[in-house]
Each structure stands twice: as structure tokens, then as C-alpha cells.
């Protein structure tokens, strides 16, 4: 029976409760009880979409203890600038019954299939908390192909899943895509740890291409290639 991280679950609960109005909290609790007990996906689909109407989209307020505790529970995870609807959606996803693997995958994949942008952000932010983690690799790879900036950022920024589960070629795509779309690459968990010869070589070609086009080169690209080839 797959289990969720109980520390993280409780932490999220505590943060959400403090950041929500009591009405919104009551609504969420009630919906979660329905989601936990249903066999099909109706309540999940309804509440996952409707949620933001109740919670609003304010930035979540965290105290310094919570920041530390989140990182202790899951190395690499940070909730900087998360909106409350995003956190509530992730918390809701933590409570989808996972005993029946096939049904669990069907429920979550069903949400992905019809998600609007903010829902996609939540679904990809939840990659490190889903059960059966190896089942989400293809989904993560597809997310990296997205052209939607906030969706990419949900995968790239302070998300420990890609560094832990992606193959080297997929990881390299994530890093390249981050440079191509001018992301804040220092927020990528595992950036310097997962540098590898193939990525370094491609980045060196990229430097040549940028220079040939009279364009600037991001300093992190030099840092990464130098880490791989200290003699340069």
C-alpha cells in the first residue's frame, strides 16, 4: 500500500488552514472527505477545478520554521511564491486514494488531460508527492515540452522530482530548455549535481551558436561547462 509523506501532509494542512478563510477551509475539508471515499472521479474533477473560486489566489504566507521543515521533509522542495490555490490543489492530490494503482493513475491522468494553465502548474508541482513515482516520468518529460512559461517553471523551480527520476537525456532537455527560455536556472534543483559530458558538450555548441549570432551567453552555462571541463 503506497503511503504519502505524513510530515509533509501535516505541514501543508497547517499552512493551508492558516492561509484560508474558515469558509474556504470547511469547503475544502468536506470535499476532501468525498474525494477520499469515491470510487470514480466526479468529486475529484469537480473540486480540483472549483477549488480556486473558494481559495482565491493569494501568495501563501509561510513562517521561517515552515520553510525549514518543508525542506527537511523533502529536500529540494520550496513553496516560494506559491499561490494558495496551487498548494490546496497539491494537498488535495495527496489524498487521492492510491491503493488501486490502475484507478489512481487513471484519476490523476484524467486531471492532466483537461487541465487549464493553473491546474497544470499544480499537477506538475505535485510530481514529487504522487504515489508510484516512476509512473510520472513520461508525464514530466511531456511537461518539459510545454511552451507555457508557468508550467515549465512548476517543473523546473524548486521541484525535486526531475533531478531524482529523469534519465540523463531528459534531464539534459530540461536544462537546455531552461536556458533557451531564459529561466532562473539557479532555482533548478540538482543543476550542478547532474551535469554530465553530453550536456556539457551540447552547451559548448550552444555557446558557439550564440556567439556566431552575436548574442550573449548566460554565465551559468560557462559555470556548468567549466565544472565538467576544469582545464578550459
Amino acid at each position, binding site marked *: 500500500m503506497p503511503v504519502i509523506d505524513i510530515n509533509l501532509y501535516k505541514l501543508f494542512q497547517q499552512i493551508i488552514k492558516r492561509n484560508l478563510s474558515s469558509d474556504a477551509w470547511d469547503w475544502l475539508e468536506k470535499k476532501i472527505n468525498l474525494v477520499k471515499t469515491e470510487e470514480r472521479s466526479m468529486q475529484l474533477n469537480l473540486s480540483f477545478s472549483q477549488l480556486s473560486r473558494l481559495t482565491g489566489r493569494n501568495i501563501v504566507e509561510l513562517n521561517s520554521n515552515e520553510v525549514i521543515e518543508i525542506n527537511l521533509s523533502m529536500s529540494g522542495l520550496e513553496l516560494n511564491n506559491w499561490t494558495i490555490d496551487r498548494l490546496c490543489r497539491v494537498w488535495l492530490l495527496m489524498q487521492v486514494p492510491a491503493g488501486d494503482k490502475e484507478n489512481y493513475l487513471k484519476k490523476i491522468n484524467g486531471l492532466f488531460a483537461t487541465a487549464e494553465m493553473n491546474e497544470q502548474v499544480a499537477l506538475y508541482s505535485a510530481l514529487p508527492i504522487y504515489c508510484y513515482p516512476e509512473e510520472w516520468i513520461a508525464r514530466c518529460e511531456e511537461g*518539459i515540452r510545454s511552451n507555457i512559461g508557468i508550467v515549465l517553471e512548476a517543473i523546473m523551480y524548486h521541484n525535486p522530482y526531475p533531478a531524482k527520476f529523469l534519465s540523463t537525456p531528459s534531464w539534459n532537455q530540461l536544462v537546455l530548455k531552461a536556458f*533557451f527560455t531564459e529561466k532562473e536556472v539557479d532555482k533548478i534543483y540538482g543543476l550542478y549535481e547532474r551535469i554530465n559530458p553530453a550536456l556539457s558538450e551540447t552547451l559548448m*555548441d*550552444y555557446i*558557439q551558436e550564440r556567439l*556566431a*549570432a552575436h548574442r550573449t551567453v548566460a554565465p551559468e552555462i560557462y559555470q556548468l561547462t567549466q565544472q565538467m571541463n576544469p582545464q578550459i
Partner: protein
Amino acid sequence: MCCNENFEERNKGEKIQTTLDLNDISGMKFFDPHVHMTSRTTDDYQAMADAGIVALIEPAFWLGQPRTGVDSFTDYYSSLIGWERFRSSQFGIKHYCTIGLNSREANNEKLAEQVMEILPQFIFKEGVVGIGEIGFDDQTAAEEKYYRLQLDLALEAGLPVQIHTPHRDKKKGTQRSMDIAIEQGLAPYMVIVDHNNEETVKEVLDRGFWAAFTIYPFTKMGNERMVEVVKQYGSERIMINSAADWGISDPLAIPKTAALMKRSGISLADIELVTYRNAITAFAQSGQINEDDFTTIKNIDQSQKFASNSILRGGQQPRVDKNSIIIS
């Protein structure tokens, strides 16, 4: 197939409003062999016709986000040979397309299998001038698999191939695309390698392929760089396109670049090859391009406009005064 997220470059600098002066190239004809018109407005069609674009090729690509079922592909391919072609004709522009499974969506193997089954229904439709745009994006195993299968299809059908080369890891991706095309038995002269830059052009030309360049703000080639490329490599087997799509792109990239080339002292003969003739030579290997059609479509539309025919009867779109606040 493009994306445009280089905000920093895009947003820097003053915003100055000027009017476009294309007098230098007035009377010239252009052919845009890569432009995604389904993503563009009627204003764009009008501006393209005004600037001298007489014909274009719309490669099949992705829609900015992944499709989830095969019927979406069927409808999309049908629209390229149906509604979009009609829309283009209303502005006197001859519309062709290439049909294929794009590299990004090749990664959804379950769907890709289904798409491969419907492709044969479309490739011999009138005005389909090649298989495209196909090739690599992330350079995954699935992308390679469907790239090879579509090259086989092109070989069997005797159609040219329009290759999308990847944005990331471009140099190796371009080399690999050419290696595989040769391995599958394609003649380089039947293959148009698209989205070249200064780093890839030499090898593409040396190996006998066509080298296409996309003039696309910020993410691909600027046209000043393009002028330098033509000065260095000449005009043989080189063509330019706009690849205009749903990103910040420019459907007038070809006429603008022609004007810049003229100002930069490139001969009219070379400009004609790069902005018109070479694309026709390459894609006419499909047997689907007849230049007389360019004139016919213009004349038919004009006569219909003079006879005040309605849109429903195939007439040309009435011109709208963009500077009037009255919409009538």
C-alpha cells in the same frame, strides 16, 4: 514550429512606431515555403498579398500544446487542404501544404501510431508538396522512430521532405537528421533542411541538401545575419521563410529581407533565387506546383471582386480601412 520566450531581448529598447516602406521591392514576387497560416489573421493575408507574396507552403505542425486524440489530427490535416486553402485563395495567394507528424507529438507513441495510419490518406491530396515538418525536437528514440517511418513514406511516395531541425542541440541534431535521411535512402536534393543558422549551413550545402533559413525575431535568424549568409554562401540551394505562427513572428519576413538584401547590394538574380525560385524548384519535385496557378488565382479573385461576388461564392475579401474607427 517555433516558440518565442526570449522576453528579455524582446522587451528591451524603445518602442518606436513607424510605417513599413517596401518600395524597394515593389513589383517583385515572393514564395514563402514555411508559414503556419492557421495561426494568422486575415490582416496578415492581406499584408502578404500586398507585399508580393504569391504562394506559400503551410507545413503541418503542432498547435502549441499536445493533441490528445487522432481525430484532432484528421481535422487539422483536412483543414490544411480545405478551409485554410480557401481562406488563402480569397487573398489571391496560392496555398500548398506539407503533411506529417511533428517531432514533439511523435513522443506520444500511442497516438503517433494512429497518426501514422491516417497519413497515407492525405499525402497524395492535391497541393500536398511534401512530407513535413518532421525531424527532431528533443532527439528522443520515439522521435527518431517516426522520423524514419515518415522518410520511408516520402521515399515511397516520391515526395520532398521538409525537415524541422531542433532549437536545442541544433548542430548535432541537424547532422543526425541528414545522416538518417541518407540512411533511409533519400536523395539530398529531395530534402529541405529547415531552420539553419551560421553553424549548420556549410555542412548542409556541402552534402547536397537544400538549406532553408527562418527569419524569425529573437529566437532564430535576424535578416541582417541572413544577408551575411547569402554574401558568404551565395544563392544556390538556399531559401528563406518566415515560419510565422502563433508566436511573435513576421509573415512579411521574406519581402522585408528581400528589401534589405537589395539595399545591401545583393543582385536581383540572387534575391529571386533565395526568396522565390529555389523553393519552387525544391518543392515542385512533388509534381504539385504549377506557376501558372499563381496568376490564375490572383486574376480569378480580382475579377470576382470586380463583379462584387460574395465571400461564399469564392470572391476576394473586401478591404477594410484599418485607420477608421468606424467598422461597417
